[in-house]
């Protein structure tokens, strides 16, 4: 377990202090959610190797669900426990606070819990086998699209189940990402959650070339952004002499360290920010988002849109609130620009999209901008609002993408075709399937931020934090972007309800129990967080203080 070995700089400190190499002290209880999820991932790999093919799929789903449920339960236990041990992998002596690679504080626990719950819903959508016997994933990813090997694999009825251990590794990395207390651990977490995602993007059953293109694009651009992140880490190490977030903060604000003018610091922050903003999909680092969202298998898109955002914003929160508050005046203006650009670009370009997945991708970019306004509030209510927004948006997103998987081209005979993602194919859906159209409308209204949905409370929370922090310009741009965004959400509603059906080429598949459960939970949460948000708001407010 990489993160539990204390990071190199702290080792150096300890060596000079004690003269020996102590075994890193690990609070296993605090990191047990991580351990369980990673263990489930490893068990999944074993299952892939040893369990007979017929029962493999069921076992994989079981292991994944079990791992996620156990992880969520443990997160709950750690949170309830109260004696939240903030350090894991701590080398002992605290130097101005906490030394260690992982910090399990309340924001981290909330983010981990959110990631686990939403991953659970995503697993359910990935386990869908009723609509299509093989599920949404290609039977054999290694087969060249259109090759005899591919059709052979399809005819043999092979079922893809490697996606579940991949997902679990990714979830583990995402949980570690916002809990990382030094930049190296953070980088490792970034890679641990990104690499499986690159793979998962390429596993679509249909339109495989598009899927593989998405995978490759995501991988290449992701690799670049990781390099930026790593370079930024190196420069910050050069500035502060440590990669630990707290030490960087000390070096920025302390009298002894090199005072804020150091170009190393500014360059380091800029490069680090590029890496993180890439992952959240903020403009101008958003170019990958529409292509990847469109090409990836839709359940994976939902998972990415919900959980990657949570993990990446969690890390961005931690870096900006723990490591870089001293240099706030240097980087906030740039982040203001990014936030405004992100909101405007996301909302405006979404208008001209004709593919529902691309539209949701640009919508997710706009939402990233809204969330950034919460981060820029620079207050506890800012943190709290971001946490709430992430969870609320995650539920609606997973639900919306799960519904996208059900709208299909009419296939030959009884078999359904691929997903009908072109917007024109959604025309008249309200008449054909009132339930699906109604639920999708609910999610769209939540995205648009209409009261009595979770999206409204989330938007209200981030904008009010922004205004309270003096950022009323951000809030104003935010609401204007919301008005623009409402236009394209409405366009889908208009298409579904007020347009004539496009003909018999589109069918709505009847989902199996897992998808029904996932969508119901998402819809219920979207309403509940809109009408009675108090419980979750209490949680986020309690979880709004980062430990240094």
């Amino acid at each position: 377990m990489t993160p539990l070995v204390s990071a190199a700089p702290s080792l150096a400190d300890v060596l000079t202090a004690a003269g020996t190499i102590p075994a890193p002290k690990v609070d296993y209880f605090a990191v047990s959610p991580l351990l369980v999820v990673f263990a489930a991932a490893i068990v999944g790999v074993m299952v892939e190797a040893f369990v007979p093919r017929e029962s493999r799929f069921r076992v994989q789903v079981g292991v994944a669900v079990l791992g996620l449920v156990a992880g969520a339960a443990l997160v709950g236990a750690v949170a309830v426990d109260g004696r939240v041990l903030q350090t894991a992998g701590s080398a002992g002596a605290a130097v101005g606070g906490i030394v260690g690679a992982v910090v399990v504080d309340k924001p981290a626990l909330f983010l981990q819990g959110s990631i686990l719950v939403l991953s659970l819903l995503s697993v359910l959508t990935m386990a869908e086998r009723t609509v299509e016997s093989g599920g949404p994933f290609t039977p054999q990813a290694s087969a060249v699209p259109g090759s005899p090997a591919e059709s052979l694999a399809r005819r043999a009825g092979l079922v893809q189940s490697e996606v579940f251990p991949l997902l679990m590794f990714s979830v583990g990395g995402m949980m570690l990402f916002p809990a990382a207390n030094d930049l190296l651990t953070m980088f490792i977490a970034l890679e641990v959650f990104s690499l499986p995602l690159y793979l998962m993007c390429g596993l679509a059953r249909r339109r495989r070339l598009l899927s593989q293109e998405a995978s490759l694009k995501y991988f290449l651009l992701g690799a670049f952004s990781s390099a930026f992140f790593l370079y930024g880490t190196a420069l910050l190490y050069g500035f502060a002499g440590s990669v630990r977030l707290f030490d960087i903060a000390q070096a920025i604000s302390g009298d002894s360290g090199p005072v804020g003018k150091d170009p190393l610091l500014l360059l380091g922050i800029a490069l680090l920010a590029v890496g993180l903003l890439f992952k959240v999909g903020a403009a101008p680092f958003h170019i990958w988002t529409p292509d990847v969202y469109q090409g990836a298998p839709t359940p994976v898109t939902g998972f990415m849109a919900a959980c990657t955002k949570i993990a990446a914003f969690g890390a961005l929160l931690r870096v900006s609130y723990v490591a870089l508050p001293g240099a706030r005046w240097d980087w906030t203006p740039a982040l203001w620009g990014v936030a405004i650009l992100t909101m405007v670009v996301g909302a405006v370009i979404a208008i001209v999209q004709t593919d529902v997945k691309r539209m949701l991708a640009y919508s997710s970019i706009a939402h990233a901008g809204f969330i950034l306004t919460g981060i820029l509030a620079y207050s506890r209510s800012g943190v709290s609002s971001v946490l709430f927004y992430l969870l609320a948006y995650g539920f609606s997103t997973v639900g919306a993408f799960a519904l996208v998987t059900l709208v299909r081209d009419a296939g030959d005979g009884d078999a359904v075709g691929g997903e009908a993602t072109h917007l024109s194919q959604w025309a008249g859906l309200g008449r054909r399937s009132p339930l699906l159209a109604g639920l999708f409308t609910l999610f769209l209204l939540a995205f648009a931020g209409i009261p009595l949905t979770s999206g409204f409370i989330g938007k209200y929370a981030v904008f009010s934090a922004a205004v309270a922090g003096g950022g009323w310009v951000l809030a104003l741009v935010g609401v204007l972007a919301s008005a623009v965004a409402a236009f394209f959400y409405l366009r889908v509603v208009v298409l579904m309800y007020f347009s004539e059906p496009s003909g018999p080429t589109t069918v709505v598949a009847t989902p199996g129990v897992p998808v029904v459960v996932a969508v119901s939970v998402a819809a219920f949460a979207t309403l509940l967080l809109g009408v009675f948000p108090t419980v979750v708001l209490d949680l986020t407010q309690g979880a709004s203080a980062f430990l240094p």
Partner: protein
Amino acid sequence: MPWLTLIGAVPLVGALAVWLPFTPAAKARVVALATSVVALVLTLAMALQFDVGTAGEYQFAETYRWIPDLGVSYALGVDGIALTMVALSAVLVPVCVLAGWNELEPEQSKTFFALMLVLETFMIGVFAARDVFLFYVFFEAMLVPVYFLIGFFGGPNRRYAAVKFFLYSLFGGLVMLVAVIALYVQGPGGPDGFLTDKLTGLDFSGTATERLIFLGFFLAFAIKAPMWPVHTWLPDAAAEAPAGVAVLLVGVLDKVGTFGMLTLCLPLFPEASKWAVPVVIVLAVVSVIYGALLAIGQSDLKRLIAYTSISHFGFIVLGVFAMTSYGQSGSALYMVNHGFSTAALFLVAGMLIARRGSARIEDYGGLQRSTPLLAGVFLVAGMSSLALPGLSSFVSEFLVLVGTFTRYPAAAIVATVGIILAALYILLTYQRMFTGPKRDYAAGWRDLDAREAFVVAPLIAVIIALGFFPKPVLDVLNPAVERTMQQVGVTDPEPTVAGVTPAAEGTTP
């Protein structure tokens, strides 16, 4: 007894009952009518218990914590103004349900009536809310049922109209959202920091702050009302909406704009309101004249009524911002009167369009001889709309003009032109549609049938009753207006003109 929650919940339960699959589609309208009548009876029962002596205070108050983390309470209560608006909504909904009785296929009618009832809940909520956040929630949530009502059941251009309506309102609402947030930040905060009581009389951190927040609210209300130059959505929406929906849209929903100006903008931002008066007065007068002129030029009956409403909303805003007790009482009364007379106009228009299949005025003519009752109802409603003495709008329009004249004589004089233009647009229309020789197209037409009579009779009765005896309503409104005047810190200019109008005699101190 939580009257207001009950009155709001009844239509919601009714909507659920209508919408549920096991309710037969043919029975949907019956359930809807029954529910809305129950809500009306409850409203009347509540109104009877309303203490007129303290009509300036919020009565039937209910306050519960809703989202303490954000400072939001579930707080309801009505003063005189809010009570009349709640009553207006409660009266008009059953009328509109009855108006839509045969308009739709049974299959569609479930959705239609369910949405109407949901809309009623939101309308009652928005008028009864005593918490700015709660007000905002209802204010925005109202858009959704109206959007679907226009989009599902509207005319040929319904999609465009529905989206335009939604985007205009949402834009205003979102700007208001920033203002709502900023207001809370300026306020005392805390778990109940959104209560209007807590936000009234704030000491703003700067004049500019107060003005900006005021503008955020005002823009949303001006779009809703709607005022020139942000009125363009209304003719489209009203013309495309089915008659019953148009009634609720123009008769009640748009009142939320002027209601908000009177009961939120003025008390919450007294200084900024006074600062904005000159501009608002000018915009209001422009609305009066512009709406009337465009109404004269319309060839579509429903668009015509929509433009007359823009003119009337100009009067209402004029009265609100004249900052005199006559003006504001007149405006508050005008909101009620306009609701009824416009409702009657739209409903008659709907009946005519249902018979003729066209909304173009030039397709009609000579109807007075074929359908005298319809013509009569149209004439009465139209006369009320042009403020004929003895009909309800006269009292309110007169009060508005008197109230404006004492402070802004020029504005009042220009606005008076609006009355003359009103005579033009109503009488010309009547002439084109109803007078002349009998025509062939109307040969087999039936006149007002029993159901239609039930639809318009209460409206006509109210129009005439309030025209001769508006005192009960004014008694309820005046204390609330007085309180608003105190909160703004303005007094009537000297010399007052008390006693000029017999209608208001002895009611305005």
